């Protein structure tokens, strides 16, 4: 195995493209190193992108923020501006692992690892996040929602590198939130999760809402009807129940060692209802 610290993005892309065997981008390594240690992954080439200029920066852009691919969860949590604008995304990233893991783990690694239970992904999708991807044919912008392809798979090509994730500006009366269900209180993997991003109208009713579910399908999924159920409401119980029912209907969970399909279907709606309430309060309304 060769380990290479990239000097430039274009060099990194070239190296990945030229490698005949298994080549991997290394960010925080909190997925990659675990997989290598267990023997599940035996890479021939590792290209470390952490040292590249700008990779560890959070930069204001067009009223939103651009988050470099090597920015850690801890860094996001310490950024007051980002926390104020997209608290749901920051709390989702902040749930990854422990304090130690937070010092390394990135949201791009979380996304590119392809786990259906990845915590930051539903919140990123609900936020309408855009990834900037650099590949052999140049740079392109992709919706984060279009990247997950199934357990352990993404739509990225072999030599694609995500350079950054862009979180857009948002109206004043808006809020987002993310909640996951785990059998413990931390250091666990989501059994079902939900991100909610909503904006309110001048009267304090929900104007638009996006609900994205995690760990209940091969990828994080947008539950359109669950969002629609909230529109026009002030999160009255009936709207929340409709939202939860729409989540249960949208998901496609499995039975496994972490929970039954029936449990996931039920609890994902509970997570959505509770996340919606938090997002609503963050948007400035009380329940």
């Amino acid at each position, binding site marked *: 195995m060769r380990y290479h610290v990239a000097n430039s993005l274009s060099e990194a892309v070239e190296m990945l493209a030229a490698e005949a065997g298994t080549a991997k981008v290394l960010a925080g390594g909190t997925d990659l190193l675990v997989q290598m240690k267990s023997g599940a992954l035996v890479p021939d080439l590792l290209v470390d992108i952490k040292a590249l200029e700008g990779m560890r920066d959070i930069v204001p852009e067009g009223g939103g923020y651009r988050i470099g691919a090597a920015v850690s969860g801890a860094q996001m949590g310490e950024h007051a501006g980002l926390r104020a604008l997209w608290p749901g995304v920051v709390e989702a990233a902040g749930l990854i692992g422990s304090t130690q893991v937070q010092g390394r783990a990135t949201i791009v690694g979380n996304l590119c690892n392809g786990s259906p239970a990845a915590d930051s992904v539903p919140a990123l999708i609900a936020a309408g996040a855009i990834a900037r991807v650099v590949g052999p044919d140049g740079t392109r912008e992709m919706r984060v929602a279009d990247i997950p392809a199934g357990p352990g798979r993404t739509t990225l090509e072999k030599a694609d590198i995500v350079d950054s994730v862009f979180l857009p500006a948002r109206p004043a009366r808006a809020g987002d939130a993310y909640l996951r269900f785990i059998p*413990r209180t931390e250091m*666990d*993997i989501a059994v079902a999760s939900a991100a909610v991003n909503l904006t309110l109208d001048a009267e304090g009713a929900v104007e638009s809402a996006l609900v994205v579910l995690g760990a209940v399908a091969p990828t994080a999924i947008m539950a359109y009807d669950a969002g629609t159920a909230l529109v026009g409401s002030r999160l009255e119980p009936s709207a929340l129940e409709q939202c939860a029912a729409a989540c249960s209907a949208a998901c496609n969970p499995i039975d496994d060692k972490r929970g*039954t399909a029936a*449990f996931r279907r039920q609890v994902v709606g*509970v997570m959505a209802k509770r996340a919606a309430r938090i997002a609503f309060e963050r948007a400035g309304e009380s329940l």
Partner: protein
Amino acid sequence: MGREFKILGTTPPRPDGIEKITGKALFGADLNVTGMLHGAVLRSPHAHARIVSLDVSAAAALPGVKAVITADDFAEVENAANRDTLHNCMAHGRVLYDGHALAAVAAVSKSVARAALNLIRVEYETLPHVTDVDAAMQPGAPVIHQGKKHKLAGDDVSDNVVGYYSFGHGDIEAGFAQADTVLERSFKTAAAHQGYIEPNACLADFKGDKADLWVSTQGHYLVRDICADILGMESSQLRVTAAEIGGGFGGKTTVFLEPVALALSRKAGKPVKMVMSREEVFRATGPTMSSSMDVKIGMTADGRITAAHARLRYQGGAFPYAMVMMGAMSAFAAYDLDHVQAEGWDVMTNRPKMISYRAPGAPMAIYAVEAVLDELCQKLDLDPLEVRLLNAADEGTKSSYGPTFKAIGLKACLKAAQAHPHYSAPLGPNQGRGVSAGFWFNFGGQVSVSMAITPDGTVNLTEGNPDIGGSRASVSMMAAEELGIPFEQVNTVIGDTGAIGFSDTTDGSRVTFTVGIATIKAAKAVKAECCKRVAKIWEIDADAVEWIDGAVHPTGHNAGDFPPMSLAEIAAMAGRTGGPIAGHFEGAPDKAGVSFGVHIVDTQVDPETGFTKILRYTAFQDAGKAIHPDYVEGQMQGGAVQGIGWALNEEYIYGEDGVLQNAGFLDYRIPVASDLPMIDTVIIEVPNPGHPFGVRGVGETAIVPPLAAISNAVARAAGVRLYALPMSPPRILAAMDHG
């Protein structure tokens, strides 16, 4: 009571503390020696299969590989228990569970060793398997080993039943006839792993026909004797040193890697280090038993138990074992009953062989009993602590397993629990409070202690029991108390197997009790010798001196004639008064005192997710005498936390294919710190008449009450009762939806 102590009951810092928190302590995997090889083990991917062929030639030919071994590298072992242990460490002919070892390599690096494993070619013929205890007992179930059926097992069960026991007295049918209410329930509990943080590790080094073994173990004499027998050595040819240990909880009271590492070292002629991954720990070391149980209790309307009957079926994995006996003995030990019977069946399955886990066999049996009691209290609208007090065993009670109790602390624990503010604190919505009693026998066993007085008057105490819970501190305290010297003047070390005589393993909550007695006796010998020396110096009769507070004083008509001589002064002159001063004791103290505990827990169950939060927890336990109260509390808290994990989330999950699905701490969920409230402790001291200071063992009882206490609390919080552990959120939610 009565006796005043100077040092017992204080809380000096443990002597091994600084080394541990500064990273200097050497654990099982921390020793490295020149020329050392790394061992790795090939493990079965099947639950049950015949090894049709096993070809290691390509692995042996890989550059860097120095030895490859299989079952063929071990001679036949005569002793049946040791033969089973060997066959568990290295499969002979058949693999019996997912993770069963069948070959091992030693190579110059871990990566070469791993690469070599990939070159070993195995042809398996898979065989029918069974991993569930009830299925394994059915006639017609795949039989793990023929010819092992217990003679009392009965005709209606399969040959996997390797043990049957029955304890009790009276006439249970007559007793049930006297009851106003009779309740019978069936329960299941999952296998739980000890969850020690330090994976099993050792370093074996053959030198000619002798060998050294460095190992993380609870009992290095046990390791020595098993390994010597398996490798065809004399015990004196194998010197075993116990490393600092990162937890054992009963799990490190046997061998897994050690004979393999020794055989590799013998074949390679070099030292071999072996360290398990966490996955290997789960797949191939022993968890405790899983169980299936029926408990029937009859009660009068005012809460008196008229009769009780338990049927316990435990599975202990792929080899014969005998642990259900402990369950049957302990099930009803807390109660004074006229009519009682507890029966138990030990069953083999295609799972790793069980090994002890804190109070082995008791937690599940007592869970079932205490859950039925609680349900009866709910039905009869009785206070659960009142009912337990009404039926509690006391001094003079003939226990359900035979012996008559001496002084015991159960009633004192129950009364302390009743009086504690926790028991009367208000509860909110979706909250419930549960209680349970718990019990463990405790054990004495063989012990050797050597106490050498150094020329500067400090005390070097060598004992043979690996220190898991702070026993070096407690033993030093007992030596200091007996000698009347400061704690800091005593240095306790754990000798290797060549240093002193045999000691039984650190288990059975025995170390503070047994090593304590041996230490007191060794100290008495030191005191007598010192008195003799001083009498000689003063030229007066030996009985004209006495030992007071660390010094020899003249007594009787000589009182005041000489200034007292301290231990340091006596030691400084020892070279001129007859040579070094020492005391020692070898024996088998047998008056261990049983220990009872009572736990109270408040839980809150989320009605929408089935998630259980532990809100408040208080543990009461009779320690006899708490030598070092912090470490007694540590045992009580640790036991409670392991019980919380067992009750809520921990379980071995097997698929239809008999393969373990959750061999890691991600999906085998022990509690994390944020899952827990502070575990409050109340130490009760009803002295054990069998120990000079009143010590009872405290290490195991605390894992017994949590299972039922939490189950009872959840039943009250959720409004539905579950009859299986763990009570993971999906199970609780399903029960609430259907209840």
